[in-house]
């Protein structure tokens, strides 16, 4: 069981709880290797995937997780919902609350949407990504993947490269790494840095090549052009030459270090195809652990006497 009934930001979980979630996820990872990948654990519980932003991979990961736990999963996507008719988020939340679900996974274009839901809904809220703010389950699955690949979390140096200021992935991963005793280093041009990186508690570097030899993980972010009002760098070509992960840069990483990416990748921009598909890449492991980690989050949020009316 977790102290908070929501996971909206990394502030909602302690370092010990992170370890507990990852340990629990290991058990679920075993289930995901079975022929019959289904558990009766959350039978009769209703989990709503409330997605106001198109997202195939995250939605599918949550959906598979809820199905493997035998929860009744309902998908609500903006295109198929009342929001196109102009219903407010608050009204949608109240409507869902009236249908009494147990857990809502929300993905929204704007920061703070999960907090808005939590104010009017009497169920657990899991943030599936809010604006450029946070994406905590992504950070948890990243930690899981790092622990599986490198055997530990404490002391790791994790270089997060690219569009930091428009990245909810970085928004959660940086505090998550700090909690477990790893060192996040955010790397990119100053135009892609947050206003106050010191608030996040990350080291800042502008030169990727300088820090590569010291890294245990090179974590490449998707360069999300559509979010930037002005192009923050002159061209994809120049971005790739300064910050793209390629074979030459891979060779500068220590031999044990791994390459990660939250997906979807812009091959040829932040990562070359040969690196993405290399043995050093654990990008597909991230996707795989996503299901187990989300199962663990659902299990730990919905289990126990203190949560849910079904007790």
């Amino acid at each position, binding site marked *: 069981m977790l102290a908070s009934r929501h996971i909206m930001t990394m502030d909602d979980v302690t370092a010990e709880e992170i370890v507990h979630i990852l340990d629990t996820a290991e058990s679920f990872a075993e289930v995901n290797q079975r022929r019959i990948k289904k558990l009766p654990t959350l039978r009769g519980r209703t989990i709503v995937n409330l997605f106001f932003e198109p997202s195939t991979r995250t939605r599918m990961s949550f959906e598979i997780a809820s199905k493997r736990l035998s929860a009744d999963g309902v998908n609500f996507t903006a295109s198929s919902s009342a929001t196109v008719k102009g219903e407010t988020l608050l009204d949608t939340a109240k409507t869902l609350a009236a249908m009494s679900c147990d857990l809502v996974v929300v993905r929204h274009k704007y920061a703070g949407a999960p907090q808005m839901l939590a104010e009017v809904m009497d169920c657990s809220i899991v943030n599936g990504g809010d604006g450029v703010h946070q994406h905590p389950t992504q950070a948890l699955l990243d930690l899981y993947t790092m622990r599986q690949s490198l055997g530990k979390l404490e002391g790791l140096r994790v270089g997060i490269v690219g569009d930091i200021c428009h990245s909810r992935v970085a928004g959660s991963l940086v505090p998550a790494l700090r909690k477990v005793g790893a060192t996040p280093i955010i790397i990119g041009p100053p135009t892609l840095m947050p206003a106050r990186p010191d608030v996040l508690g990350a080291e800042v570097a502008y030169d990727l090549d300088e820090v590569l030899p010291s890294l245990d993980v090179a974590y490449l972010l998707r360069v999300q052009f559509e979010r930037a009002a002005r192009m923050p760098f002159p061209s994809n070509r120049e971005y790739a030459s300064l910050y793209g992960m390629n074979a030459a840069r891979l060779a500068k990483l220590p031999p044990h270090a791994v390459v990660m990416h939250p997906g979807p990748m812009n091959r040829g921009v932040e990562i070359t195809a040969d690196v993405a598909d290399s043995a050093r890449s654990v990008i597909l492991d991230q996707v795989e652990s996503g299901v187990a980690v989300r199962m663990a989050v659902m299990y730990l949020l919905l*289990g126990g006497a203190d949560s*849910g009316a079904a007790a």
Partner: protein
Amino acid sequence: MGYRVKAEVMDAEAMDRALTRIAHEILEANKGAGTIGLVGIMTRGADMARRLAERIERIEGTPVPVGSLDISFYRDDVATHLSPEVHATDIPFDVESRAVVLTDDVLYTGRTIRAAMDAIMDYGRPSAIQLAVLVDRGHRELPIRADYVGKNVPTARTERVKVLLAEHDGKDGAVILEDDGKGE
């Protein structure tokens, strides 16, 4: 609530004899060790499975596959009772067409066994599932019975039965505990 020991129902020697007898019974019922697999329910059931496997190997001369099972995800009371720690399930053999002997220390309501049978089924279709327990204390809530029993011990619902195993508790045995009346 505190508990105090009301009675010792099995000492180390009795437990040793019971395990040996159960090993023989399993072999007899299954006509040898060739098609069986032992699966212990975490945590003491898993230790019991390992001990039974040793005995069976000693008797038959061939190793028996042993696995351990955590039933946290199969409990019917997840909503009110969350296992503080989930242990890894490890069944290193194919249960398909094998007679799986589930082992647990105490048989009580039967709910744990129900969960364990569901869990085993998710690994495949065993030819049979059998149940071996060290202590059967009664008070079943489901139509479940054990195939192999170390000892039947009549108890009150307010009492608890604790099986001690050297691996965990420093010594072997089984005791009945009762409320010490001291509250929390």
